């Protein structure tokens, strides 16, 4: 195994307090991607 993720990065990835805030941040960010809607890509024929 090559340790590609440093101890500090791993600490941040697994620390429940940091991750709690990350959870809120990610939930909001995902909601923005979802809520920014969807639509067509073609120009309407008049």
């Amino acid at each position: 195994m090559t340790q590609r993720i440093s101890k500090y990065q791993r600490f941040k990835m697994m620390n429940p307090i940091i991750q709690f805030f990350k959870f809120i941040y990610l939930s909001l960010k995902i909601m923005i991607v979802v809520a920014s809607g969807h639509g067509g890509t073609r120009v309407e024929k008049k």
Partner: protein
Amino acid sequence: MSKILILGAGISGHVAASHLRRKLSKEHEVVVVSPNSNYQWIPSNIWVGIGRMKSKEILFPLAPLYKKKGIGYKQAKAISFFPEGDKNESKPYVLSEYVTGDKKGQQEKITYDYLINATGPKLNFEATEGLIPGENKTYSVCTYGHADHAWQGLKALISEMKTGKKVKILIGTGHSSSTCQGAAFEYILNVEQELRRHKVREMAEIIWISNEHKLGDFGMDGMLLSYGSMTLKSYEMVEMIFEDRGIKWILGAGVNKIEDGIAHYENLEGAYKTETYDFAMLIPAFSGHDFKAFDKNEDDITEKLFKGFMIVDADYSPKPYEEWSVKDWPETYQNPTYQNIFAPGIAFAPPHAISKPRKSKNGTVISPAPPRTGMPSGITAKLVADNIIDTIKSGKESLSHKGSLGNMGAACIASAGYGFTQGSGVSITTYPIVPDYEKYPNTQGRKLGKTFGEIGLAGHWLKLALHYAFIYKAKMRPFWWLIPE
């Protein structure tokens, strides 16, 4: 009064049925035909396959819910389509066969005014010789039954490892054109973490085998992601995770035959190779269901409805990769010949792949098919339902709801290990799903910022939260419709 017939009760069929029922008055009939008596939340199969969830936690029976909500339900499978009716039946219908109970084996002509084909994929294990879930030491996690079985196989293997046996585990794609690499990616990381939890990790060599030409392609041509303050390519992120977890990889591999503990494959270099294993989970090819269609004179018109999957408003004219465009992708999922037929979710025929197609030196296509995950399946089903509702209410065809995969974002929360404090998840969002190289020419066709990746415990919590939220929504509990697709 209109009758809407929905084939399939997976993510897209169930989303369509529930929205139609909520928004249409009771004079209109909503009928679901599906062979499986249960609704299953497929993304959580990963956890069933590592023994951390029971299959009963990810499913519920459809019949009582549909009865309570006034949705008709027939536990049957569609066989053939008669979009003009026949000599004796003036209305369009789908010939279906009951799969259980007193009516088992009986066929019925189920008529409709509007038809939603949401039958998803056929899990085409037969396309790979010897790839049979539960045989030849290969497993699948594509259904809860398969996932249960996979856990039995893995549990037995872990017991052997505890007695000192060294093993090789192979996870990835089981066909040169398989899709759904994301599910295999989740499973390999979850298996790796479970082996550590059982303190047998050092007894296993874990190998990723895939038809992708690069890690992190996921059938989406890879992605350029915002990752913290950096911008990473998806292959760099996956490579970092695999190296960190000690997972080896074989890429550009088209698995073509399975024998007991041996996977045969051809690679992009044209070499024929084998890989041995003690446990394998390989995603099969996905194909259409081989449905047939007939006109009112009972002449075969299958090519008007199907191209493997169902033909919709996509541009299917063959073109080289360089000429592919987001505009080729469908917007309303309506069949061009029969305008009362729609196919959301996985059931529609994509115009082409998303990843650049690749062939081996022998001419074998070794390239992932385009994935269609849960979120776009739900969104496309809802927009189809909304267009049908508008059409019924206004009395004239309305197709104002549109949702091309080239103008839609998707979130994919890939579990990387289970556990409330030890779990992990790789959260990835992409916008748009199909890259738009005209709009975003410098960022691989996607909008940076809206295309991002994150790794950590929060990803596990998110995946778990989505599990509970989507099962709540699927059970149509109070205010379920406030939860987005």
